[in-house]
C-alpha cells in the first residue's frame, strides 16, 4: 500500500506556461493613488466609487499582513510588482498550436467544447459566448432578474447596488478585502426580485466575454424576499494566469426567506496566491449555501462566511468557514473534505461563534481529510465560541488514508490499482460532488480520475 502511494505523483506544472505580455492599456505595476485614479478614469467610475477605492487603498496600506496565524508564504507577495488593472480586450494572444499537448489532452478528457478550450488555454483572451449569455439574460430578464457585470451594475442600478455594496464585507475587513476595494474590476452583480425562483444556475462562465475573469473581481448578489438563485463561477479545467495574485470579494445578501447557493470550482496554476473574502448575510428564514471546490494554487486562503442575522437563517458551506450566529434558531452546517496529494497541504480553518443569549442555535462541522502520499499534509484549526445554554455545537474531524482493504477488494474484482484508487477518492467526495449541477459533477469526477491516473502503480 505504501509503495503504491509513494508512486502517486501529480504534475502540477501543466498550468505553468507563460507568454509575452502586450498590454495596450494598463495601470503599470505597483499601487498608488495614481493607479486608483487611472482605474477610475478608464472605468468612468462615479465619484462615490472613486472615493470608495481611495478609502480602500488607505486601509490596505495601513493594515498589516495577517502574520501571527497565517502562512509565512504570504510575505512572498511583492505588491509593487503586481499589475492592478488590465483594460479589457488587451489580453495576450497566442495560437492553439502553442498550447502544450498535455493541456489539450486534459481538455479532451474533460470533454470541454472546442471554443471553451481556446479561451481556457489563453488562445482567445475572451470566450465568445455572447449567444449563450444573451439567452440566459433574456430568460431571467423577463422575471426581472438583473445579471450584469459589477461595473455595469454600479452604473445602471446604483439604487440597489449602493445599498449593499461593501456592507457585508466592509473595506477594513482584512488587508485583501481593502486591496480589492481599491482596485476591483470585473465580477458579477445579480439582483433577484421578491418571490422569483431562478431555475437555471447563473454562470459567470457565460458572462466572461463582457468582462474577463478579473484578478480583483467583485461580486454582489442580492436575493430579495422569498427568491431563489444559484450562481456558479469557475470551471474544472486548469485555468492559466500570468498574474500571481487573485483577490476577490464576494458579498451575498439573502433577504427574508431567500435562498442563495454559490458554487465555486477553481483550478489555479501553482504560482497563484488565491486570497478571497466571501461572506453571506442571511436574514430571517433565509439560507446561504457555499459550495467551494479548490484545486491547485500556491496558497489559497478563503473562508466563506455566513452571518445569520435573522431567526431561523441557515448556512452551509465547505472548505474554511466562518459562521456567525446573530439570531435565535439559526443553523449552520460546515462540511469540509480535503484531499492532499504529493507534497500538497490542505488546511481547514474555521470559526463558529454563538454569542450571548441566543437560543436554539445549531452548528455542525465535519472535516474529513484524505492523505494520498507520505509527504502529503493536512491541518485543521477550528475555533468555536459558545455562550449560554440552549445551543448545540459540534465539531468533528478525521484524517485517513485510502483504505488498503478497499483497494484490495476492487483489485480482486479486476480493477487496476489506479482505477481502484480513483474510485475510492471519488467515493470520498461523492456526497459533496453530488450537490453540484450535473455537468460540473461529471467534470469534477473526470478530473479526479485524471489526477489519480497514470500516477498510481
Amino acid at each position, binding site marked *: 500500500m505504501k509503495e503504491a502511494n509513494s508512486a502517486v505523483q501529480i504534475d502540477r506544472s501543466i498550468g505553468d506556461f507563460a507568454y509575452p505580455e502586450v498590454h495596450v492599456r494598463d495601470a503599470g505595476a505597483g499601487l498608488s493613488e495614481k493607479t486608483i485614479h487611472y482605474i477610475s478614469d478608464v472605468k468612468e467610475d462615479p465619484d462615490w466609487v472613486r472615493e470608495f477605492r481611495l478609502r480602500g487603498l488607505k486601509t490596505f496600506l495601513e493594515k498589516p499582513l495577517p502574520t501571527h496565524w497565517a502562512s509565512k508564504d504570504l510575505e512572498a507577495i511583492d505588491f509593487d510588482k503586481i499589475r492592478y488593472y488590465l483594460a479589457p480586450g488587451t489580453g495576450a494572444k497566442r495560437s492553439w498550436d502553442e498550447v502544450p499537448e498535455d493541456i489539450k489532452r486534459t481538455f479532451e478528457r474533460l470533454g470541454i467544447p472546442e471554443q471553451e478550450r481556446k479561451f481556457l488555454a489563453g488562445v482567445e483572451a475572451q470566450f465568445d459566448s455572447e449567444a449563450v449569455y444573451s439567452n440566459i439574460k433574456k430568460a431571467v430578464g423577463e422575471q426581472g432578474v438583473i445579471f450584469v457585470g459589477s461595473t455595469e451594475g454600479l452604473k445602471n442600478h446604483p439604487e440597489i447596488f449602493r445599498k449593499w455594496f461593501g456592507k457585508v464585507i466592509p473595506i477594513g475587513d482584512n488587508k485583501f478585502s481593502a486591496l480589492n476595494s481599491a482596485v476591483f474590476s470585473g465580477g458579477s452583480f445579480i439582483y433577484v426580485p421578491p418571490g422569483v425562483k431562478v431555475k437555471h444556475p447563473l454562470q459567470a462562465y457565460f458572462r466572461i466575454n463582457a468582462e474577463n475573469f478579473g484578478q480583483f473581481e467583485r461580486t454582489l448578489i442580492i436575493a430579495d424576499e422569498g427568491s431563489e438563485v444559484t450562481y456558479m463561477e469557475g470551471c474544472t479545467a486548469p485555468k492559466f494566469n500570468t498574474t500571481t495574485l487573485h483577490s476577490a470579494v464576494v458579498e451575498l445578501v439573502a433577504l427574508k426567506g431567500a435562498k442563495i447557493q454559490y458554487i465555486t470550482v477553481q483550478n489555479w496554476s501553482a504560482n497563484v496566491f488565491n486570497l478571497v473574502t466571501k461572506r453571506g448575510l442571511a436574514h430571517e428564514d433565509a439560507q446561504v449555501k457555499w459550495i467551494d471546490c479548490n484545486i491547485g494554487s500556491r496558497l489559497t486562503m478563503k473562508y466563506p462566511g455566513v452571518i445569520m442575522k435573522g431567526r431561523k437563517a441557515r448556512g452551509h458551506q465547505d472548505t474554511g468557514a466562518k459562521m456567525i450566529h446573530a439570531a435565535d434558531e439559526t443553523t449552520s452546517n460546515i462540511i469540509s473534505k480535503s484531499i492532499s496529494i504529493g507534497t500538497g497541504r490542505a488546511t481547514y480553518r474555521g470559526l463558529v461563534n454563538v454569542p450571548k443569549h441566543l437560543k436554539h442555535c445549531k452548528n455542525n462541522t465535519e472535516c474529513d481529510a484524505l492523505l*494520498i502520499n*507520505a509527504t502529503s499534509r493536512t491541518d485543521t484549526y477550528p475555533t468555536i*465560541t459558545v*455562550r449560554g445554554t440552549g445551543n448545540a455545537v459540534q*465539531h468533528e*474531524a478525521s*484524517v485517513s488514508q485510502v483504505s488498503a482493504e478497499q483497494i484490495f477488494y476492487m483489485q480482486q474484482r479486476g480493477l487496476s490499482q489506479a482505477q481502484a484508487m480513483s474510485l475510492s477518492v471519488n467515493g470520498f467526495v461523492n456526497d459533496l460532488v453530488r450537490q453540484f449541477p450535473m455537468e460540473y459533477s461529471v467534470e469534477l469526477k473526470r478530473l479526479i480520475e485524471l489526477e489519480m491516473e497514470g500516477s498510481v502503480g
Partner: protein
Amino acid sequence: MSLVAHDEVTQAGSILFGPVDSRGPDWFRDQQRAAWKQFESLPKPTRKDQAWRFANVDLLDLTPFKFGGTLSDHDRAEILDQSRGLDEVAGRLIFAGDELVHRDVISDQLRQRGVIFQPLERAMVEHTDLFRKHFMSQPATLGSAKFAALHQALVSSGTFLYVPRGVEIELPIEIFHWLAGQNAAVFPHLLLVTDELAKVTVIEHFRSAHRQSPGFACGVNDLIAGPGAKVTYVCAQKWGENVLALQINFTKVEHEASVKSLNLHLGSRYSRFESLSRLTGEGARSDLLAVSIADGIQEFDARTLQDHACPHTTSDLLYKNALNDRARNIFGGLIRVEPHAHFTDAYQKVRNLLLSDDAEANSMPGLEILADNVKCSHGATSGQIDADEMFYLQARGIPPAIARQLLVSGFLNEVIERIEERVLADHLRKLIEEKFAR
C-alpha cells in the same frame, strides 16, 4: 521587556526583584540568572498571540506577588492538619510556600531497590547527572515560555522522584503544595524520572490555606517515562478563589511506555494549564485527561500538544468541562504528527457543558498531520443538560437541583473512570462533590 518596570515595584520581597540567593549549587544559580534574563527579555503575552487567543491576559499582573515569608505556627499546624488526601501512600511531601514542611519517607525496601524520593534541592547535589539531564529539558512552546523562565529563575524546592529499572511502586506517592499568606507566590516543581519497566502513580494537590487570599502559582512538571514504564499522574487543583495559576507540564513517553495524566481543575480565579506530551518511541501511549468545573468568574485556559515524533504511537485526549455562572473556558489543543510518524493513532475530544446563559466555552481543537498512514480524529462539542434526562429524573421524584448535579457528575465521570486506581478515582469524585456542595 519585563512585565512591569522595576521602579513600579515597591514591596519588599516582590518576585519581580528576581532570584534570591538560593541554596543550589553554582551551576544551578547560573541557570537561574540566565532564566531571569530570559524572563525579562520575553514579551508579555497578548491576545493577538494565537497561543493566548481568548485568554484574559490582563489578569497576568504579577506586581502584587511576593515570596512566601516565614509560616506562622498556626498556619503550619492548620496546613498539616488539612493535608489529608489518600489514606495509604508510599510516600508524602508537603510544601507550604515552597518550604518543605513535612515528609513521609518511602519504605526501606523501596529505598534499597534504588527509588529516590527527595526534595529538588537535594537531588541537584546528590543526583546531579539525572537532574541536569531532565530538569526543564524541553522548552515551553505552548505560549508560556516567559513564565517557564520565571519558574526556572525562582524555583527553590520541589519533588524529585526516580524509579529505577523494573521497580513497581504499588501505592501512590502524594505531594501537597500550599499557598499561605496574602499575595504569596509559589513555584511548584515535580521532576519524575522512571527507568525501564518501572511503574508509579503520583497525585499532586494544589491548595490555599486561606480561601480568599490572592496568590500566584507558577509550576512546572517534567514527567519522563522510560522504555516500557507505566506512569499515572493526577493533579487536583483547588487553589483559593483569588489565585492566578499557571502550570506547564512536559511529558516524554519512550518506546512501549504509557503515561496517563488527569488534571482536575476546581479552584483559582484564572488557571492556565499547558500540557505537552511527546511520544518518542514505538509503542508509546499517552492519555491526556482533564475535568474542570468552573463557576463564578473563573477562567480555565488549557493548551495542549500531542506530539507524535515516532511511528506506531498512540495518544488519546479527553477533556470535559462544566461551566456555570459567568465562567469562561478556553481549550486550544493540537495533534501534531511529524513527518514519517506513520501508524499514528491520535484522538482528541473536548466536551463543554454550559449550565448558565452567561457561561462561555471557546474551543480550538487542531490537527497538523505530516504523515499519511495515520488514524486521527478530533471532536469538540458544546451543549447543555438534556431536557429529557432532567424530565426523567424529576419524574422519579428527584428535585431539580439534585437531578442537575447528578447529570453533571455523570457527564464528568466518564473521564474519572479512566483512572484505574479506585482510591484515586474515588478521591477525585469526592473533591468534585465538595465543589458542588459549596
